[in-house]
């Protein structure tokens, strides 16, 4: 066979393999919007808690956010194939959602959700863990910076005043959810603009 195959043809085949493997692995899913959604959800839960419904504010808003995320994500998924990488990242965030829902529901119902510093520290540490794990898998420095912000927030809130703890938490949500989410949406839109490589 190779007697009839030119060198250029062989090179072309090799480059086709490389481009198609890259195309298959390219992350065409869009997740930036979930960070923005959850940032807004955290702000709503904080406002609702401050209004005086501490027991239900967090579990209810998180449950609604989980349902909205699952429904929108499954509608957007379309016919995109599942990759091992995508499943690993998805698993981290699903586990985070379940952990937060159960933890804050139990803390709220048991009446132990009274220490704001402990609440912010636990929440920030969990978000730092999820962002850190995701960033290390994806080798994404920007997301790792978000993890660092959450970890710093978790430490600062343990030593700061109530006001400092609140400010740190609000700033961390703004940077790591809203700003990072918008950055993600823009990056994903730019990625989608790249034309697929045809066989």
């Amino acid at each position, binding site marked *: 066979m190779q007697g009839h195959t030119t060198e250029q043809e062989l090179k072309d085949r090799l480059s086709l393999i490389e481009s198609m*493997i890259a195309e298959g692995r390219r992350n065409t899913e869009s997740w930036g919007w979930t960070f923005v959604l959850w940032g807004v959800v955290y702000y709503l839960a904080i406002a609702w808690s401050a209004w005086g419904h501490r027991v239900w504010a967090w579990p209810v808003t998180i449950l609604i956010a989980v349902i909205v995320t699952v429904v929108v994500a499954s509608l957007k998924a379309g016919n995109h194939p599942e990759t091992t990488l995508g499943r690993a990242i998805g698993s981290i965030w699903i586990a985070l959602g379940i952990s937060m829902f159960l933890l804050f529901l139990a803390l709220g119902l048991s009446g132990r959700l009274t220490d704001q510093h402990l609440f912010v520290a636990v929440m920030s540490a969990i978000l730092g863990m999820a962002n850190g794990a995701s960033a290390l898998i994806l080798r994404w420095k920007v997301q790792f910076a978000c993890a660092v912000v959450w970890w710093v927030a978790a430490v600062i809130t343990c030593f700061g005043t109530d006001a400092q703890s609140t400010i740190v938490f609000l700033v961390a949500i703004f940077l790591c959810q809203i700003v990072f989410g918008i950055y993600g949406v823009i990056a994903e839109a730019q990625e989608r603009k790249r034309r697929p490589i045809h066989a």
Partner: protein
Amino acid sequence: MPDLPELDPVVHGRLRLALLSLLSGVEEAEFTWLRAKTEATDGNLGAQLLKLEEAGYVAVKKKFVLRKPQTLYRITERGRQALTEYVQALKQLLGPAIDS
């Protein structure tokens, strides 16, 4: 002079090679996704996938999602091995020309 390796004719077809390469990066993929990535016609794509299936290089699974039929393809261990051997053969055939 060492013997030059033979290229697997099933893998060598341009569209079949593209399909195997695409499937090597994902767990499984729908027919429509493969069609979008390769821009092949339904008929040609179906025929080439059938050849790969007959060679044992891809496995096919049909299911219904919300009453709509869905055909999913995944690369088999044999297909992955064939693709790896094909790449090795290509590299051997190209030799130093690979970097030029």
